[in-house]
């Protein structure tokens, strides 16, 4: 059995969801590592896009900003934010990774503020950046996040990036593009999806050694459990070797 930490696990699990020939808007950190790993394993033709305009770079190392020099290293285009964002609006972007301080059972994300008064936030967070834009227009959004009760909240204080809103068809009734929405939530404990008519978060696979009770204990709302729930396939040796030697040799991300 190979040994790995939970960041490595999440990255390897995420990488497997990215099929060859898909396009993805990449953020800094774990999402970037997952996309780089996918490119070096099953998805060499994963089209990597950065929100500030880097199109199809050959990343030499992790970017520290989604607009930095690395994102245009041997890229096909050094373009603009409008380029990437309008690609998403046209339906040309399959995946985006998102994050947030809070997520609710419909996959709505908050990265704007904690508190109940917008004008006097208890904690001011950075805001949407491009997250809301990508959550709106990319076909499938994936979240990589630690599984903590305060993050998995019954109600987010602010909907920064819309998921399935109040569930069912509410996302599309609000005008968001048909067929788009949250796809997978990947944590240190499990993988969750929304493959049910209510569009509620549902456990799809448990990571090695994790129980469903552990997942529920760390979640602030009632989780559904898929009838087809299975065990998460752990990282394999090839993935780990590439992740450690090529993707993140300095352990910026996997060393966290």
């Amino acid at each position: 059995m190979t040994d790995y930490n939970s960041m490595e696990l999440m990255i390897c699990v995420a990488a497997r969801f990215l099929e060859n020939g898909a396009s993805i808007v990449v953020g800094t950190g774990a999402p970037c590592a997952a996309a780089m790993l996918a490119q070096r394993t099953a998805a060499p033709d994963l089209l990597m896009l950065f929100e500030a305009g880097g199109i199809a770079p050959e990343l030499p190392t992790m970017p520290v900003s989604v607009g930095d020099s690395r994102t245009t290293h041997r890229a096909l285009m050094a373009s603009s934010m409008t380029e990437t964002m309008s690609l998403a609006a046209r339906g040309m972007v399959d995946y985006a990774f998102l994050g947030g301080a809070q997520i609710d059972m419909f996959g709505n994300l908050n990265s704007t503020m904690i508190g109940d008064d917008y004008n006097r936030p208890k904690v001011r967070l950075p805001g949407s950046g491009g997250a809301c834009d990508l959550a709106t227009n990319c076909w499938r959004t994936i979240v990589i996040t630690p599984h903590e009760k305060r993050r998995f909240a019954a109600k987010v204080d602010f909907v920064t990036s819309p998921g399935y809103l109040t569930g069912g068809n509410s996302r599309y009734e609000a005008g968001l593009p048909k067929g788009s929405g949250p796809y997978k939530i990947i944590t240190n404990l499990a993988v969750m999806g929304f493959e049910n008519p209510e569009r509620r978060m549902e456990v799809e696979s448990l990571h090695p050694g994790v129980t469903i009770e552990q997942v529920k204990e760390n979640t602030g709302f009632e989780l559904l459990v898929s009838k087809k729930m299975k065990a998460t396939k752990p990282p394999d040796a090839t993935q780990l070797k590439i992740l450690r030697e090529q993707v993140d040799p300095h352990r910026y991300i996997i060393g966290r």
Partner: protein
Amino acid sequence: MKAVYEGKGALFMDPDPDAAREHFRKKNREMTGKIMSVRDAVAKFVPDGCYVAIGGFGGVRVPVAAMHEIVRQRKKGLGLSGHTATHDFQILAAGECFDRCDVAYIVGLEARGVSKNARKYMESGKVKCAEWTNAGMAWRFKAASLGIPFLIGRQSLGADSIKWSASKIIECPYTGKQFATFPALYPDVAIIHVNDADIYGNSVIKGVSIADEDLARAAKHVIITCERIVDTEEFRKDPHQVMIPYFCVDAVCEIPYGGYPGNMPFEYFSDEAHLKEWLEIEEDAAAFKKFLDDNIYNVKDFGEYLERHGGIERMKELRKLEFITDAGFEA
């Protein structure tokens, strides 16, 4: 046209293209030299209370020298566009220079963490905010650059940001579907750092442009800070380079390393150690005050600031880091 929904957020600037047209009608189209010091450019084009938009993004190609100058000149009551504003936002927040902000991304420095001081400033109630998204802000600059009062998009639909923005929701007259409106944003002044410019303001940006081609066209005044002045002949030889034409520009300031400690694509990488120092020193209010004195208030100009952080030797290292790309970002 009736809106289905109207956000109650502030609209800090007039989106009417006719108001902008009156200004642009008078804008100089002669090829006159516009070289000046960043001190003079800020003194002249950034009056207290005006609305400022900053080029670049996420500490990349940010006009840091101009940010320092705004703080040093103790500008107050500015409006600010926070379009993935990171180190630039941190600097202006340290100077408490602005009191209203169109927010898309603020207080954070992406992978680097959060500015404690900027966060505190934003939680203080001293800054009136409206809440947008990166594409929303890009759309607002694009609307302005197209000379139209708004552009539509889906971003912000279903999100709470729309409540605190000046977006409205309308029904498309072709499809009957709902779209959000993004009102044109014509800033009083845009400050954009570029690689090369000529003395008239024709400017070349290397790496990603973010939304700066639209921003330069949207703004009533434009200050260009550049790594170097080049001869106009370089641009006439190959007309595919210039992204910002001279007639958009009001001031050109040559400031090598003017984006330090940020990353300037095709020039130098970011000084992550110094950016970390900024983030860490903010934990201690007294130390931070001294840090600001030492780095901005009691510093003559940006050249002196560079000297204090290793001068040309450090800059050479950062240039190396830009081109030796497998060194990683903490080197």
